[in-house]
């Protein structure tokens, strides 16, 4: 099963490598990992997307909690939550492709944020599957370059990860 785990941790040097090291040492999967400081600069918040049986994910949460720098851990997939990912796609935009690319970006509520005479860069946010769907809608030959952030997640409504 796919799980999204949120980790609130001390914004200390080396904290990220402790988490990454834990996953590799214990053989856990990481599909994506995003991290940045929170509104409180002493804390970082990480979103980890992982796959595993319930037993494995239970161990992952326990092992994360055991890290001395980790303040709180929440498996977002235990309740209602929202996830978003940002993608930048550079596409070929010459001739009639120019119009088609703009139309496709509009349909997916993407924004063209860089324009040259040969290419557009489109910014798109959404769930991972929406981003996948956009890429599938494009002619593979038109895709020049892509970059994705990996998912960031947050609980809905009253569900919060705070200290």
């Amino acid at each position, binding site marked *: 099963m796919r799980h999204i785990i949120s980790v609130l941790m001390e914004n200390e040097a080396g904290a990220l490598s402790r988490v990454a090291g834990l996953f590799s040492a214990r053989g856990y999967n990481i599909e994506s990992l995003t991290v940045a400081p929170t509104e409180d600069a002493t804390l970082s918040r990480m979103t980890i997307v992982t796959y595993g049986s319930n*037993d494995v994910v239970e161990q992952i949460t326990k092992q994360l909690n055991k890290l001395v720098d980790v303040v709180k851990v929440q498996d977002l997939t235990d309740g209602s939550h929202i996830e978003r990912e940002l993608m930048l796609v550079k596409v070929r935009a010459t001739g009639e492709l120019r119009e088609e690319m703009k139309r496709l970006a509009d349909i997916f509520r993407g924004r063209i944020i860089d324009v040259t005479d040969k290419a557009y860069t489109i910014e798109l946010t959404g769930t991972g599957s929406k981003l996948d769907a956009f890429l599938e809608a494009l002619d593979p030959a038109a895709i020049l370059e892509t970059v994705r952030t990996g998912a960031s997640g947050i609980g809905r409504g009253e569900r919060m990860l705070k200290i």
Partner: protein
Amino acid sequence: MAEMELTGAEIVIRCLHAEGVEYVFGYPGGAVLNIYDEIYKQEGFKHILARHEQAAVHAADAYARATGRVGVALVTSGPGATNAVTGIATAYMDSIPMVVITGQVPTPAIGQDAFQEVDTVGITRPCVKHNFLVKDVKELALTIKKAFYIAATGRPGPVVVDIPKDVTQHTCAFEYPDSVSMRSYNPTYKGHAGQIKRAVQMLLEAKRPVIYVGGGAVLGNASAQLIDFARELGYPVTSTLMGLGAYPAPDPLFLGMLGMHGTYEANMAMQHCDVLLAVGARFDDRVIGNPKHFAREARRIIHIDVDPSSISKRVKVDVPIVGDVAQVLDEFGRLIKGGAERPEEAALKAWWAQIELWRAQDCLKYDRGAAAIKPQYVVEKLYEVTGGEAFVTSDVGQHQMWAAQYYQFNKPRRWINSGGLGTMGVGLPYAMGVQFAHPEAMVACITGEGSIQMNIQELSTCKENRLPIKIILLNNGYLGMVRQWQEFFYEERYAESYVASLPDFVKLAQAYGHEGLTIEKPEDVEPALRRAFGEWKDKLVFLNFITDPRENVYPMIPAGKGLSEMILV
């Protein structure tokens, strides 16, 4: 009055004084010279110069195992730190509280591939409870405070504090905090009341109960509570290698060690019980073998552990209780004594009758009439001669298992060995750490001729400090445990397990200034031991017992098999 500024090196010393440190085990080098200069000027603790950083860390680890206090080691950057890694990993696997201070190249040189630079924090990360790189002298005191706090609390473990050389030169005002609290680190000690009630009820209803004790009972100082609780109910007790001594081995309720080389009765009871109480134990592969085979039997499991991640890691448990083992067992005792309910007598009697049948197998029997010295006999005699009162360290191999099986530990913290990492070479440095902790105690190091050579240089440290350790070498001429596996599982192809060209251990001991004796006949075993602990009481004595090279450790459960697939003698 303006506070006096101290250098980082002075601060390190002041912190160690404030922590009440008695011994620092270490080895100097460039990056820690400022600290050593301050050690020279102080008298608060004694520095013990080992002959190898690995041994310094093992000695600090053993000091912690024998006392329950935090062990302290100090090494230089680069090779000092890498030599220390085996010692750190050994302590980590057995959850030993330890602070290891490592020197580092000056901060501006970090990342430049400077002379004697390694990424110590990176190298040690997977084998420490936590580690720190101190980049600013102003953070030094608080960091050391945190290091001791983290090492000693919750599930204990080693903490590394890496200090760049320039930080030991920089100055700042010194203040050592009385206490420290960390929002990200709050171990749980008090067990959940509802879970404790459920557990007690389950235990009282048990028909075939077993108490399975691990190293956590020793580390958590839960021996008294454990004895009280087990005797109140009259339930059988078994222990892992690391838990030995938490429950007195000579007691009739004790079934001996369980696991790969555990007794028949202990493993059969584990396999056939209906309620299992695990106390500070982690169901590891050397204990329960294959978890699939173990889980097959219907039984309910109660697990007390201070580390939530140890619970339901390898085996699903029914009643998890996260907390301090001593506190939780105390609570168990209170509830049981406070209530009227007692276990069903007939069922318990029948269970004990079954256990006695298993016990009657006498699985630890061996040939007592043999012409060669049997290693088991040496350990039995050691137990007799020391009246069961010695601290016993061991290395790793067959001798370790015989020590565990035949020396009946009746107190906790008396059996000092590397269970988790299984590090050959710990025996002698462990004996040093124990002897420093308990100068008057009898300390015996049971070892093999392979293992003892992995830290033999420490005979020099022992001489310098006049440590009256008794080395009990069970010399079978082989890397015995390897030989045993090759005999059983590799059709007797003894690849590289015969150790040729052994030194003359007696002359070797004498060269370092100690006494030595080679013993070749069974009838000479006891007199040699009596001499070592009598006439040579105050000396280090190296007893080289030439033992039967073909002897194997029984019983044995082959790796990956279930508890009932035991090979008996």
